[in-house]
């Protein structure tokens, strides 16, 4: 068995054409991840450019209104580019530069990872090309233009379901055609090893900070840490430093779309089965013959038929729980947190907020929840308006 396993999940199921390159990436990452110069440069970018550490905000109004556990929000929405994606891309693009690459490619669903990659590429002088499913370029037209403003070339992916999984397919195909000068900056804790580990490490800054911040504020660990899960990068980053704190419940909230009992869903943990796809063994939404299912969610960022292998492992060993949240619940949460706390959270993050609204009232007042807001929701306003039957012209 090859490397990069989380239990039976993970691995490197990719074309031979990419194997030497992926080994080079492994070596480069091993070399630089503890290199003082590299980590100092990344820390500096995180601090001075991305705006880290992100706030751990005590949502007092929500806490009172829901009448149960104390609610803290880890505000990744306040990062430069408006989501947690910047944590990963600064690390990966910096790594690409150290490897002597001059060009980065990336997939994007909602556009957040694409925007973040385009941003890091602009800052660090790299050529940048983004692959985005045609459906998503329509749902998130503003982000397409944003990436172009940042100097990236955006390819509209016309194959398959024209969403995130097809954008990943397109990126993998492009990478097999051109590896010498190009690094594929994968946006989530998925794909072949070493991506799930690299992305988790760069995203674990979320839980490293949150753990320190909550200990400082409350003098104790939280009872629950929760986040939304598509591929799972913000959730993995939010969970990672708490995994060894057995008393902390970890909850991932996935997109149920119209519901897990319908075929319009993207809730991989609820309806998926074990499979091998996009370079990894994990859980996938698929039929009895292993054809990957056309998934659906209102959220372009959670609209993915798989989940990162480390999440699959955390589920298998019972360390983390995964719950489905429907479009309707997420939209209600989107509206709720806007009115209650004055925060327009991403529709992705609103999936976590929706489940938070269910569990907080059932918990005791001296209990603590940390919920990660993975991104801000400006990009979603028009789509939410459409969902509510209002036609906005952006």
């Amino acid at each position, binding site marked *: 068995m090859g490397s990069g396993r989380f239990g039976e999940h993970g691995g*490197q199921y990719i074309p*031979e054409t990419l194997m030497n390159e992926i080994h080079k990436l492994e070596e480069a990452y091993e070399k630089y991840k503890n290199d003082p110069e590299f980590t100092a440069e990344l820390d500096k970018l995180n601090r001075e450019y991305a705006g880290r550490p992100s706030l751990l905000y005590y949502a007092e109004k929500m806490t009172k209104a829901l009448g149960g556990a104390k609610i803290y929000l880890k505000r990744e929405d306040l990062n430069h580019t408006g989501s947690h994606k910047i944590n990963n891309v600064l690390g990966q693009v910096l790594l690409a530069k150290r490897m002597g690459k001059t060009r980065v490619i990336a997939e994007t669903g909602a556009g957040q990872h694409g925007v973040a990659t385009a941003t890091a590429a602009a800052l660090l002088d790299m050529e940048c090309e983004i692959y985005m499913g045609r459906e998503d370029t329509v749902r998130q037209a503003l982000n397409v233009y944003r990436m172009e403003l940042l100097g990236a070339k955006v390819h509209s992916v016309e*194959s*398959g379901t024209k969403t995130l999984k097809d954008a990943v397919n397109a990126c993998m195909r492009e990478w097999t055609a051109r*590896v010498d000068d190009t690094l594929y900056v994968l946006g989530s804790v998925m794909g072949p090893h070493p991506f799930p580990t690299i992305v988790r490490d760069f995203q674990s800054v979320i839980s490293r900070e949150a753990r320190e911040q909550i200990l400082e504020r409350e003098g104790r660990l939280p009872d629950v840490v929760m986040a939304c899960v598509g591929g799972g990068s913000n959730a993995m980053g939010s969970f990672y430093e708490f995994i060894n704190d057995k008393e902390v419940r970890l909850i991932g909230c996935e997109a149920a779309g119209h519901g897990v009992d319908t075929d319009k869903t993207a809730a991989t943990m609820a309806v998926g089965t*074990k499979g091998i796809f996009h370079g990894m063994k994990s859980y996938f939404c*698929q039929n009895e013959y*292993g054809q*990957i299912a056309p998934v659906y969610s209102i959220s372009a960022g959670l609209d993915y038929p798989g989940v990162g292998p480390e999440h699959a492992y955390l589920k298998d060993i019972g360390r983390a729980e995964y719950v489905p949240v429907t479009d309707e619940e997420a939209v209600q949460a989107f509206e709720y947190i806007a009115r209650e706390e004055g925060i327009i959270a991403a529709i992705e993050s609103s999936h976590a907020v929706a489940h938070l609204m269910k569990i907080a009232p059932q918990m005791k007042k001296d209990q603590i929840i940390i919920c990660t807001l993975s991104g801000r929701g400006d990009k979603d306003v028009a789509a939410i308006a459409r969902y509510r039957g209002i036609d906005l012209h952006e």
Partner: protein
Amino acid sequence: MSKIYKAFEGKKAFIGFLTAGDPTLEKTEEFVLEMERAGAALVELGIPFSDPIADGPVIQEANIRALSAGCTTDKIFDTVSSIRRKTEIPLVFLAYLNTLYKYGYDAFCKRCQECGVDGVILPDLPFEERGELVPIARKYDVDIITMVAPTSKERIQKMAADATGFIYVVSSMGVTGARSEIKTDIKEMVRIIRNVTDTPVAVGFGINTKEQVHQFSELSDGAIVGSAIVQIIGRYGNEAGEKLYEYVSEMVSGLAK
């Protein structure tokens, strides 16, 4: 030992690829027989997959056509059984690993043996991950074909030493599809392979002309053509049989002696 070696016995091999179930499985059976009649030594049957990441647009579309027509792994096995009643031509599958994983490695390889499939090419199963499948496949005399790429370099030796059936040399970077020019030093790759094994070597990816068939069969033991064949099927659909016969005959005439 599988029958694959027969394809290379005493001659260069022309290997034709088509996507099973495109446009229907009845036609797949007819097309395989047409290709054999035209002189193909081995036929690769692609098992359609929703997300064929190693394939270019031509084969992607064939996958969609086949899946839309209701093609499944079980129906393909039935078709192979039917083909086997008419011909002994070596047959291999080209599949993505999830198809086998979901079917069950053991159940899949067992069905291959029962129906007469001699090998499986898996573009998303690299050398490092072969261990979970190869011992099971061996139990049923199914060869898991090794793919060697232009970027394989120092990996070639260990991969070739482990190979059975034939070795698939990927001529170019990127995905499947016709190319006007192939720049990789195939001669050097074949030389390294020959140093460690007698397993036959065939070159694929991008080949679509008689001249390319000649060039690469001269450097190796055979040439593989996929997208160009699938394109003919895409264009002529149910009526593609005669065109396939003509095209494959021409390609076969290009084989080096």
